[in-house]
């Protein structure tokens, strides 16, 4: 039976290190491929890479021939660097997560009409799994999509919608919010398309009238803000996260703050 106290009480958030099985051991596992045949020289090169990554006590778990002229490594080591966790400030979507019933009730009470939300994959993007998960009735992981809400008029425009058309439709339909989903990121097409939309939106004077939300597996809140959007949501976002944000933002723009103090709830 161990009689000493656990080292966990010695955790110093100012000097955070990775954890293998002992506090501050700094254990890291990395894997990578070198475009050379497996050999003692290749192994040594891998170790040198690990050293350059700031690891010591390096153990090469395996060196495998992944193809002619390619070797694959799994390496364990201990990283010497630390991170000051206590000093970290991250841009997060600031809104309290609410459940669907609550959100419906708030819209009914405080707004009195359905909020119109348009959703689409824009540009060449045809990967609608994400926007479907947020908008379609079925939703995602038991959290129902915006179509299921009584007080959202949610319209999923699907794939490959051009920015121009999206904005024109939003004006015609008096949309309150636009959700843009971007999946393909090669050559940073997602960034260019998102920036283009917001440039047009600004030219059309829509930035104050409409809430602009971006989403996608490689989308983050900071990236969305950089592109001119109001919020960004990434992997693991549930429909109610987006719904909560839209409602709070809609009311905030009209000077109405909801009673309970919003606590920061970051999108995963």
């Amino acid at each position, binding site marked *: 039976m161990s009689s000493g106290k656990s080292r966990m009480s010695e955790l110093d958030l100012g000097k955070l290190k990775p954890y293998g099985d002992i506090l501050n051991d700094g254990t890291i596992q990395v894997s990578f491929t070198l475009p050379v045949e497996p050999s003692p020289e290749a192994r040594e090169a891998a170790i040198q890479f690990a050293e350059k990554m700031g690891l010591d006590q390096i153990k090469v778990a395996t060196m495998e021939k*992944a*193809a002619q002229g390619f070797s694959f490594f799994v390496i364990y080591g201990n990283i010497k660097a630390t991170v000051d966790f206590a000093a970290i400030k991250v841009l997060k979507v600031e809104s309290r997560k609410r459940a669907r019933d609550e959100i419906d009730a708030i819209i009914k009470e405080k707004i009195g009409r359905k909020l119109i939300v348009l959703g689409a994959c824009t540009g060449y993007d*045809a990967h609608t*799994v994400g926007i479907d998960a947020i908008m*379609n009735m079925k939703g995602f992981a038991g959290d129902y999509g915006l179509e299921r809400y009584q007080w959202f008029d949610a319209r999923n425009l*699907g794939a*490959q919608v051009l920015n121009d058309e999206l904005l024109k439709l939003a004006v015609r339909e008096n949309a309150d919010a636009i959700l843009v989903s971007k999946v393909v990121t090669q050559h940073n097409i997602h960034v260019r398309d998102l920036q283009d939309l917001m440039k047009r939106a600004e030219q059309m004077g829509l930035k104050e009238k409409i809430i602009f939300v971006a989403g996608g597996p490689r989308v983050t809140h900071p990236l969305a803000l950089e592109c001119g959007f109001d919020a960004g949501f990434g992997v693991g976002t549930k429909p109610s996260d987006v719904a909560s944000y839209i409602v709070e933002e809609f009311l905030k723009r009209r000077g109405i703050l909801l009673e309970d103090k919003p606590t920061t709830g970051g999108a995963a």
Partner: protein
Amino acid sequence: MAHLNLDFSKVKRCRILAEEIATPVEEMIGAHTTVAIERATLRMLGVNGAVIRNGQYFPEANAIIEDLAKAKLLGQGVLPRFVSAMLEHGLDTRTLGTEAAEGRIKLSEVKLRPAAELQAKARELCVQARDHLVRQREYRDTLRRETKDTFDPQGKGGPLLYVIVATGNIYDDVVQARAAAQAGADAIAVIRSTAQSLLDYVPHGATTEGFGGTYATQENFRIMREALDDESRKLGRYIRLTNYCSGLCMPEIAALGALERLDFLLNDAMYGILFRDINMKRTLIDQHFSRRIIALSRIVIHTGEDNYLTTADAVENGHQVLASQFINERFALNARMTQDLMGLGHAQEMDPEHPNVFLLEIARAQMTRDIFPDSPIKFMPPTRHKCGDIFYSHLMDAMFNFVGVLTGQTIQLLGMATEAMHTPLLQDRWMSIKNAKYIFNGARSLGVDITYNRGGIIDHWAAKVLDETLAHLEMIRSKGLPKAIEEKAFAEVSRKETGGKGHDGVVLREAGYLNPLFEVL
């Protein structure tokens, strides 16, 4: 092989329904042609060059057909005018192709030759085109024999390992493809650039940039096939090459695939309609002609039923997949394809946390095997529930491989641990192949050594899905395919018969329509 206790009288009824569903569609197909069919015809006759327009290559076939379409002169097809011009100017097909594409000869102004002369010459050209395709097929088959190819449509030798490359640069793809072959892959697919299916032309030449994939071009096919021929000889094992027909250029991709000796082509009767919003008639007419070419070249098609389960729930919608497979089978048979060329597709996409999920997946995979015993069925891996935890993802792929080898799948599209992250790195693919080889070898004979519990969970689930499929096909037959699709028969998607892209490329055949390829292929 362990078999389920399926009611084959119901299976037979499903096939009859599929035939009845297809019949009115075949009538519609026979009354039309499309710009893509006419372009594919020109390509098979040798018109495969490109002209420069706005600083970019534009296929000669497109330039020619576009001109005739604008003048509304496609009702008889391209051949009456093309062949008349050949006879008048004494040019071969390639030269005329260039002259016409560059506007020096205007096919819209050509005087038509007498019908008998046209028919004879057109037929002669089509027979030559057909014979060339046969020679390409034979070259391919010779190489397969040379490398002692063991591919068996029924999957008796264990699943074929199929992986994907997609760097955007065909030359980088060649490196990845060779590496994958060396690691043990049997078939390579080059994913196309995103949205290529919506281009109404086939890009020209070798390409080094693409979005989320590499453009499918004739030159890219040639480059990759040449590399894989070399690798096949080196490894003593034939490596297959796959590309994708779907989209507005289905017949052309089929033609180019046949010309460049591809082995597998993704080709689905309904995918373009449902997932790319391509016009229903355009897709159905194009798929027929494309499959005539494919049948002649004895290329194996892969159908896209995996896609249904990325929008519809996989636990609840197995019947959509099976109904679609029966329909794809029927359209393929109507295009003179044989069962051993039909790589009907399905996927393991159920929620991994569903109780007894592996029993349900086994039921679906085994029933596909039992219902299509002579078809090289293609099993596709989890994608929808994949996430950034690559270790868990790798396990999901292992279980998928286990179900595949247990149920005797013919083609196994290997899962990637990094599916949710990026197009596969060389190491991701290597890891995936190692996974498959481990499980395919270790459980190689499991399928023949067990029997399924009569009336157990697996048997029961298969029977349930078969019943639902039968009801689904009855519904589709009573409404007709177009109406059924409009009313969301597949993948929760609704499409209207006159909606979608490419509708303007559908042309009603007029009296005098000439295209002997329909007879000679």
